[in-house]
């Protein structure tokens, strides 16, 4: 099939403003969009810049706006995108060059929820026991790959850059609902603020954006409930 990629380009080293690059070429309908971006970079314009690594939806490097939706470029096939495809960097993060954005602020918010297991009791000789049912309670939120698609798609985050954002809450949920964790109180304090979970307005964009199909809004809802009723 013939495809045309319309890519929003911006290199602050030489561009005053962003501009649209158009690239037309033949591709296989079963190619990933990432394959098409690679084609542009490798054969048409070596200066096109984006992040990528694993190319099958696990490393989380290549989240971007594809025809207006936040997706991973390696997890969407050309045949599902039409012949003219518009590609822009994720919203809400500073653009560094072309499709590559600054993720530092996003990762700082992730770190702020203390995303690690906290225990006060001494480690047993073998494993801490956990029933399959208890393990299931936080299964969904263990899938997060920190791609940033959910937070970037969140209108509450667009309105308030201080909002901790859905990705950080997902990772807090992963520990709050882990029966082995004993750090819930501290984590709850971080989330129980105006820029914590209460900034969420249940808009569901995050659910649509998540390439791992995490039910982000449900996870945030569970955290809100836990805060209200102090039940984890």
């Amino acid at each position, binding site marked *: 099939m013939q495809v045309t990629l319309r890519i929003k380009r911006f*290199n*602050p*080293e*030489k561009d005053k403003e962003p501009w649209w690059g158009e690239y037309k070429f033949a591709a296989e309908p*079963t190619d*990933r969009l990432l394959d098409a971006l690679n084609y542009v*970079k*490798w*054969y048409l*314009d*070596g*200066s096109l*810049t*984006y*992040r*990528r*690594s*694993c*190319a*099958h939806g*696990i*490393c*989380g*490097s290549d989240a971007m706006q594809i025809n207006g939706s936040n997706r991973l470029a390696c*997890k969407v*096939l050309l045949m599902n995108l039409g012949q003219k495809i518009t590609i822009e960097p994720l919203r809400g993060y500073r653009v*560094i*060059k072309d499709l*590559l954005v600054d*993720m530092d602020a996003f*990762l700082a918010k992730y*770190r702020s929820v*203390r*995303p*690690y*297991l906290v*225990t006060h009791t001494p*480690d047993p*000789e*073998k*494993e*801490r*026991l*956990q*029933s*399959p049912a*208890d*393990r299931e309670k*936080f*299964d969904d939120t*263990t*899938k*997060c*790959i*920190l791609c940033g698609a959910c937070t970037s798609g969140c209108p509450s985050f667009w309105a308030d850059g201080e909002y901790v954002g859905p990705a950080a809450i997902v990772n807090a949920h*992963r*520990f709050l609902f*882990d029966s*082995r*964790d004993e750090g819930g109180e501290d984590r709850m304090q971080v989330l129980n603020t105006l820029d914590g979970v209460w900034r969420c307005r249940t808009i569901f964009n995050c659910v649509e954006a998540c390439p791992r199909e995490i039910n982000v809004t449900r996870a945030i809802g569970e955290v809100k409930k836990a805060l209200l009723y102090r039940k984890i």
Partner: protein
Amino acid sequence: MVQRYDAVVVGAGGAGLMAALQLAGRGHVAVLSKLYPTRSHTGTAQGGIGAALGNHEEDHWEWHMFDTVKGSDYLADQDAVEILCREAIETVYDLEHWGLPFSRTPEGKIAQRPFGGHTREFGKAPVRRSCYAADRTGHMILQTCYQQCIKHDVHFYNEYHVLDLLIENGRCAGVVALCLATGEICTFHAKAVLFATGGCGKMYRVSSNAHSLTGDGMAVVYRRAIPLEDMEFFQFHPTGIYKMGILLSEAARGEGAILRNKLNERFMERYAPALLDLAPRDLTSRAIYREIREGRGIEGKNYVHLDMTHLGSEVLDKKLPDITEFVRTYMGIDPLTHPVPIQPTAHYAMGGIPTDVDGRVVIDEKNTPLPGLYAAGEVACVSVHGANRLGTNSLVDILVFGRRGGRHAVKFIQENDWVPLPAHADEPARALVSQVLKSTGKERAADIRDVLQDEMMDKASVFRDAKGLTAMRGKLRELRDRYRQVKSEDHGARYNTELLEVIELGGLLDVADVLVESALARQESRGGHYREDFPKRDDANWLKHTLAYQTPKGVELKFKPVTITKFQPMERKY
């Protein structure tokens, strides 16, 4: 710019993070990665980590050791394998204590599943040894290790690409790296450096490897007169998605999936009557190619089927959710109702930078260490995998030897001072970068890489012979000449990922050269190295490790003996 640290870890996958966690709080340590930490390839490991916990049935580390040695076709060093299998157990418990969300048995213990080549009682039948978190075990390991790094405040330099290793008076003095964000070339003066940069699978067309796996660490040390060990042994994983190479974990076969040819035969019955579809990877990949060569590929094409249709949605959705989704996303078919087209995919370098069991890089046949220099994970060769790695053992390797390397480095930085930086330490790295940026050549890096990947696939993959490997040697010479004329279109400093790709390609060419020369020299078949002109294993002449050195005249090969302790080499049958 010069930064000074006690220790620098290069690479932020499982091995690098594990080493950094040992160093954290015990010295001034920095982790350099050309990616963000959780982007590393450890995250894509699926099926599990092997450890003889015995949570479902009797198991012992000695059984794990035997399987690993036999799986290696007796080329692994058995002192190192013993450490691997003993320490696997405590390492898995450590990860659990750090919060790793393993799947659970009904009693709440860590769940375990069967895996290729892992057996009970020295080869009698498959055993449940692979500790798993659905089919996302690598993802969970990478996240858990990174979470611990946050807890222990490990300092990261994200998106720094290593260009050179600094050696002064026979000791490690640091590394030079390119800051991708600014284009700056930075010198890191360090007492100890640990390389954990992963593998080099991108030299092949069909590969499970990330775009970033370009043999960087291997190439950097090789250019500094440090040998690479056993590079002829490259593993092809039997079940990659047809054409794309995306991995479908052995866990699928661990849960009961079956390989079938166009006659719908379970053809592994002919190749491994005891273990069937759970035979080791080298043997299974060759079996698939034989079926294809003998005309039993599906529709006469070069693929066979992985049949999961009988497993049911409970197994697919709960135990294999990610690979089920990969098949739906990338093939547009449902593995519940349709068999999946698969072909072997370039997966793992058994060889690498030679180290001892403490992660110290050793530079000759007598295992002389280079003080201050360490390596761990796929970039290294301890050797615990020998000629063929068993599934799950890469995760065991990164964790056990990442930790041992880190622990030894702690001792080293406490007992030693910095050696002075070499004069003009960053000059070679600067020259490398400016040569690319100022190039007036006309060759596209992508064209060179295309030829490299296609030719390596054709001449230096699962089946090899002198004719093909000699032709590949000539091809590499030609590609090297073309590489000298490589062009660059992006002359900017900021995030010049074109420059990065050109440098990566240079590394791949060097490492491919080592692989081909080592494969040409080894006139026998062992593990992942199969020579059609020498189809038998030859212990009398070849039960030894290859060491490849870069010299002005090209690759020079030396050899060192294999350490054999408990298990004498036997015929390898499954």
